[in-house]
């Protein structure tokens, strides 16, 4: 009869090598997360610089040095960029393991910049007159984001004339978000604000489209042909 052997050495060695491969993966993860954090900081800094530039340009409107049309175009371009970049930062934050707190701070900084953009755009509206429709969106990160998909669709439909500012309604680290929620008297999520209309809970594409088209009519802008069907 054979004396059965247990390849203990091989099991132990295989386990050590597997753990080493995993440690290699963890090191790669740290390096990658660091790169993501640097990217986030770069994005935030870039948006802050854009914001400062916009603020300064706004100051020169009264003096006639800056033009409203040009300013509106810059604003639209900045907000569109802002919306794209926030998706990246949220994605980074969700997958972060080692620098969760730093990502949270960056996200907070980003939301604050976005709020500042919202305020600046309102001030530009006062000085230059409304040129676009602003949509403020409070999403619920714990729920299915169909509302976000509807807004993406509307953004694609209307293009740069619809500016979407999105905020995480569960982001408790930043009191300003709560202040915004209180100011709009929002208690149910997702919530969408189009002009003075506040929609709480899931809102259909038709209702939002109607509200956006009404806003276009109010600001005496060229009515997009998409509004003809509403």
């Amino acid at each position, binding site marked *: *009869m*054979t004396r*059965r*052997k*247990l*390849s203990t050495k*091989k*099991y132990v*060695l*295989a*386990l050590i*090598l*597997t753990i080493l*491969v*995993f440690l290699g*993966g963890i090191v*790669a*993860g740290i390096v*990658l997360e660091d*790169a*993501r954090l640097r*990217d986030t900081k770069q994005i935030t800094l870039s948006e802050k610089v854009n914001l400062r530039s916009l603020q300064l340009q706004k100051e020169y409107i009264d003096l006639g040095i800056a033009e409203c049309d040009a300013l509106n175009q810059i604003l639209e371009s900045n907000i569109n960029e802002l919306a*794209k970049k926030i998706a*990246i930062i949220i*994605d*980074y934050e*969700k*997958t*972060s*393991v080692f620098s*969760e707190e730093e990502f949270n701070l960056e996200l907070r900084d980003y939301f604050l910049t976005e709020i500042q953009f919202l305020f600046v755009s309102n001030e530009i509206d006062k000085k230059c007159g409304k040129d676009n429709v602003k949509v403020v969106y409070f999403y619920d990160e714990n729920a*299915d984001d*169909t509302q976000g*998909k*509807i807004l993406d*669709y509307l953004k*694609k*439909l209307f*293009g740069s004339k619809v500016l979407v500012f999105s905020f995480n309604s569960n982001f408790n680290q930043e009191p300003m978000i709560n202040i915004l929620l209180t100011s709009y008297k929002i208690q149910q999520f997702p919530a969408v604000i189009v002009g003075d209309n506040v929609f709480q809970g899931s809102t*259909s*594409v038709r209702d939002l489209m109607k509200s956006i088209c009404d806003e276009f009519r109010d600001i005496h802008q060229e009515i997009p042909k998409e509004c003809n069907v509403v």
Partner: protein
Amino acid sequence: MIVKFLDVVLFSTYFLLLFFAIFWLLVLFFPENEQKKKKLIGTPFFTIIVPAYNEEKSIVETLTSIVHLDYPKEKMEVIVVNDGSTDTTKKLVEEFITCNPGDDIILLNQENQGKGKALNVGLDIARGEYYACLDADSFISPNAINEMLPYFQADTNVAAVCPLLKVRKPNSVLQKVQWTEYLVNMFYKLLNSKIDCIHVTPGPFSIYRTKIIKDLGGYDEKTITEDLEIAIRLQKHHYRIVQTFDAIVETVAPNSLRDLFRQRVRWYKGSVDNTISYRKIMFNKEYGDFGFLRMPTIILSGIIAIIVAATLLRELFIKSFQWFGALKAINFDIITLIKNFSFDFNVLSLPFFKIIIAATLFCLSFFIMIYSYRIIKEKIRNHGRTLVSMLSFLFLYGLFITFVWMYIAFIFVAHKKNRWT
């Protein structure tokens, strides 16, 4: 960070697969139990048992491959056990015997009682010191006996020797995929052989030491995988099973998905049944690697396949549901989405962890596949086997096997009866 159930499953599976892959690579490159092969001494009497049930398409070719074996005819007997065939198998065998009077071929007829019983009937009258079981849809290379018997003479504790199995004349993509699968399985069996962990002695021409099998009581007539049961029983009694690549046996592979599915259900269900029957071997130190590695992984591989598939299907279902919900919410206006589609690519946002898992597993699978060809000394392009069949093996075959395991799980839950076919 939100840890999803899918990530936990993928992470754990990856860890286990990587661990096993590294372990087997260590077995391959740092062997401890190399088989020493010598030349055959003398010509021991040899018996070939051919259980046959409705094998009219292949029985003559099988018997022809037997009579062409490079072994003295006076030292060899062939016992064909007709297991109640309803086709012309019996008539064809009788004609073959008449046409080959110089060969010692015996035909035994019985009511259809299953392969295990047919083998026992043959074993009862077998006179050979060694015997082989040969499925009636398999064909032997002429040197098989001369290449396999020396292993018995080199070590008296060797109870069985398994040949290299290949798919016969693979024509369809399905058969070519199985051709690749057989090669990979043979490579895996070689690794198992190095640490005495072979858990199946396949029906096509595995050779046994007759006395040992008779002493152990012959074949289990109730199991649906008698070749697997006898191998585990040999392991239970601490006998050795050796894998060789010097003797080649070709076998006919299923040519339809339905037949393949039924065959695999029988194999895997049989392996689970026998693992449960011999559960005392599991994690028993007395059985070394066989108890600690081979027996648990028979069931573990099925469990992993089911968990990974169920998790991926769940994720796919949720994603599809969300995708459909989003499309419904925008009244299925896909045209607008397509017209305004913009490709925003950010390298840093890529799911690197999942990509690394997929890439590592793909590379390991590819390495094993290529190494299998090398070890078995088979040309990759032989029989016109194309990249399609290799890629089908890598990507689709795993999915197919997962469905087999899911069906087996259903059989267990539903308490369905075992069927041989």
